[in-house]
């Protein structure tokens, strides 16, 4: 009995050892796969080209995608955070916020070097932020308005930067992680503030090699990068391809590994079908949205019942299902991107006009409101849309059909893309598509356009309640308080007054070569382009 017991124990121990060995053997390749590999050149497509190299003065991702790997920021958005809303230190090692919320003090990393070998200090951070917030006379700064709260930027010692604010601002920290706020060298800026328009020199993970206009941009590994062990790549090559079919062909033909802006659902499907496991697809709600501006000084859109009817007519849930198959839109959302900290919970969203689950009830109410406002059956108006295929055209056609179902007769007028913005500014429309893309999902950044005096208040509404709620949410320190003001603002904007009408959230689709590792999709195509965490598995 004892002998048999010993035997069975031995067999059991053998089995355990075997399964352990098998387990280790099977896990090892997977572990090796997840361990970053050094070397290789990342080749990616950029659909647009940088007009200049100075991100402080530019507004297109065409600057960020090829040029960002040469620079560092004070703070950056965590490259592995899928919501794209978590700030982490880049040049800043740590920071403190004063109790009254008006002083932010940052301790900088030591030993960070510019690509010319000089040391980076707080003078450089101060000079860069001074250029953004208080630009020289003739120089423009597109993000100056986002830092209206800043009274001064100070550099008390070489490793410390201090921002003094005029009032507390809950979004300030995240706003400092803006992907546009590259840190430049103070001495260079002092000699020539325009120098960075045509030259590249930062502290980022890659050094500049060449830019052949209309063709490509090349960067090589910075061996002195402050984050030891990074970057993993030997270098990268950005190829400028404007035609969307040529972009897809480049990935399909394995001439490029990724395009960081986004492809259409049809492009994704064709790439997956052609390349199978060689393609990995990452998807996310996209911090871009098309809205409908209704001119508040033109009849009958000066009547909020009419504006409310227009939003009530839209079956967003059904539209999401149908349009997400053919266009780069998907999520039904309020004023914040779903899945991010300030997004409207679906139950609350369903209470707002135009988001009701019962579309028949919604449209019946829309018809009632139109009748009450004296708008006759078959009332005709012109909807102006931007001449860009994705997603403007499919969304425009969908909305016209939805409005037809409450008895409106809408004619679409397509305006060429370059003439569109001036048209909006002139107010030369009754109802028109409006657009916004953000770089970080943050209410202060996204909702400023709805203030009465905003340059982007194309519908020309005047609403001091909105203005007040905006300031309250921006200055609220406690998240719950901020959330309360935010929901009130959203209700007033989209439901009670219907100053604008949100359509569907854009949906970002990135099909990329399965060789590309260490890159995580976020809701913004402006984020996560420093490439220091990216590596190639082969």
């Amino acid at each position, binding site marked *: 009995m004892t002998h048999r017991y010993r035997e069975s124990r031995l067999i059991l121990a053998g089995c355990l050892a075997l399964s352990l060995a098998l387990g280790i053997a099977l896990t090892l390749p997977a572990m090796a796969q997840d361990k970053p590999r050094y070397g290789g050149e990342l080749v990616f497509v950029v659909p647009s080209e940088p007009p200049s190299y100075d991100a402080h003065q530019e507004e297109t991702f065409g600057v960020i995608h090829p040029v960002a790997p040469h620079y560092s920021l004070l703070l950056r958005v965590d490259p592995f955070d899928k919501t794209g809303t978590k700030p982490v230190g880049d040049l800043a090692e740590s920071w403190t916020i004063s109790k009254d919320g008006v002083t932010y003090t940052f301790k900088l990393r030591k030993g960070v070097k510019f690509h010319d070998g000089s040391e980076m200090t707080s003078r450089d951070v101060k000079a860069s932020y001074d250029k953004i917030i208080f630009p020289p006379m003739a120089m423009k700064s597109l993000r100056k308005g986002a830092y209206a709260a800043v009274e001064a930027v100070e550099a008390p010692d070489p490793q410390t930067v201090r921002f003094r604010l005029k009032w507390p601002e809950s979004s300030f920290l995240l706003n400092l992680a803006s992907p546009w706020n590259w840190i430049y060298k103070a001495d260079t800026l002092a000699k020539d503030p325009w120098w960075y328009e045509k030259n590249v020199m930062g502290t980022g993970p890659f050094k500049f090699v060449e830019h*052949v206009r209309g063709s490509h941009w090349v960067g090589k590994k910075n061996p002195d990068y402050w984050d030891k062990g990074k970057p993993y790549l030997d270098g990268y090559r950005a190829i*400028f391809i404007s*035609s969307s079919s040529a972009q897809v062909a480049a990935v399909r033909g394995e001439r490029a590994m990724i395009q960081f802006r986004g492809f259409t659902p049809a492009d994704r499907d064709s790439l997956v079908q052609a390349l199978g496991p060689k393609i990995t697809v990452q998807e996310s709600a996209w911090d871009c949205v098309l809205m409908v501006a209704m001119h508040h000084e033109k009849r009958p859109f000066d009547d909020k019942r009419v504006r409310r009817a227009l939003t009530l007519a839209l079956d967003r849930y059904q539209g999401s299902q149908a349009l997400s198959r053919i266009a780069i839109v998907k999520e039904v959302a309020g004023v914040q991107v779903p899945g991010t900290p300030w997004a409207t919970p679906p139950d609350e969203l369903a209470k707002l006009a135009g988001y009701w689950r019962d579309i028949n009830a919604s449209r019946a109410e829309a018809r009632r409101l139109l009748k009450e406002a004296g708008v006759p059956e078959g009332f005709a108006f012109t909807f102006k849309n931007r001449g860009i295929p994705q997603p403007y055209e499919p969304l425009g056609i969908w909305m016209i059909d939805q409005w037809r179902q409450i008895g409106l007769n809408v004619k679409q007028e397509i305006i060429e893309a370059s003439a569109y*913005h001036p048209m909006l500014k002139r107010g030369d429309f009754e109802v028109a598509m409006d657009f916004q893309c953000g770089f970080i999902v943050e209410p202060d950044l996204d909702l400023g356009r709805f203030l009465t005096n905003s340059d982007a208040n194309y519908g020309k509404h005047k609403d001091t309640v909105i203005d007040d709620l905006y300031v309250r949410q921006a200055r609220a320190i406690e998240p719950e308080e901020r959330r309360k003001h935010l929901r009130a603002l959203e209700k007033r904007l989209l439901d009670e007054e219907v100053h604008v009408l949100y359509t569907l959230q854009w949906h970002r689709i990135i099909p990329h070569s399965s060789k590309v590792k260490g890159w995580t999709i976020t809701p913004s195509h402006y984020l996560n382009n420093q490439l220091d965490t990216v590596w190639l598995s082969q």
Partner: protein
Amino acid sequence: MWKYILKRFLLMFPTLLGVAVVIFVLIRVVPGDVVELRMAGDRGAVSEEALAKERARFGLDRPVWEQFATWLLGVARLDFGRSMWTGAPILEEIKLRFALSLQLAVMATIVAVLLAIPLGVIAALKQDTWVDYAVRIFSIAGLATPSFWLGIVFILGLLIIFKWLPPMVYTPFWVNPWQNLLQLIWPALAVGYRYSAVATRMTRSAMLEVLREDYIRTARAKGLVEKLVLSRHALKNAMLPVLTVIALEFAFLIGGLVVTEQVFNLNGLGLLFVQAVAHRDYTLTQALVLLVASAFIFVNFLMDLMYAWLDPRIRFR
């Protein structure tokens, strides 16, 4: 003869001036503004203050006549200014793309000439036989097929059948001839086919006309070998209209391959042209229009000289 050349040469300048005036006015009539386009980006909202600063920087706040005078004076000194989109000197922008566009135009012309002249001559000699019909079908198909569509077919064919795509970045011929040809041969074939179709039709009809002329009958009556009749008497005279077509097509190719360049992602003048217009880059668009107009005018001038050489009646008129 010299008087004729001088007259033709001097006529080029008022033509170019006319083009300059027209393009300067037209580009400003089109709605849109380079400053707004560049600064609005995806976000859409830009302050008036930022827009005004940028307009002042480009001189767009000055009266139009002053902008025109400044530009024209620059052009006279061959200084076309800077691109309003990239800030780079215009000549640098053009120089970057010119080599590719010129090489593609030359390659497409070679493809076209190699196809068109033998096919056109054979079709004329074998008029109304199956050979003629085959050539006519081939050339009509070429006329009916847009070169960008053929380019897409090439790309899809290469991708699906060979799982291969031509290089997407231009390598100059003198740096790596093989890489260069791998990239440019496909667009040259796509463009050259359509181009050859036009030239084939022209060669055939010109040959048919010439072959019925009295001097051909005389040459044959003198007992001249048929090969000599065709090459020395018929082909030389039939070449007049064919050369015109080839030359004009060549000039067109310098800046006109807009869609084909997009399909193959070629960094050429056609693509630059589209981007310049889309961005409302006034200075760059003006310079490109002047360049293309100059190419046409210069080619026309060369053709006039060629005509005079080929046809003595023109010289002595």
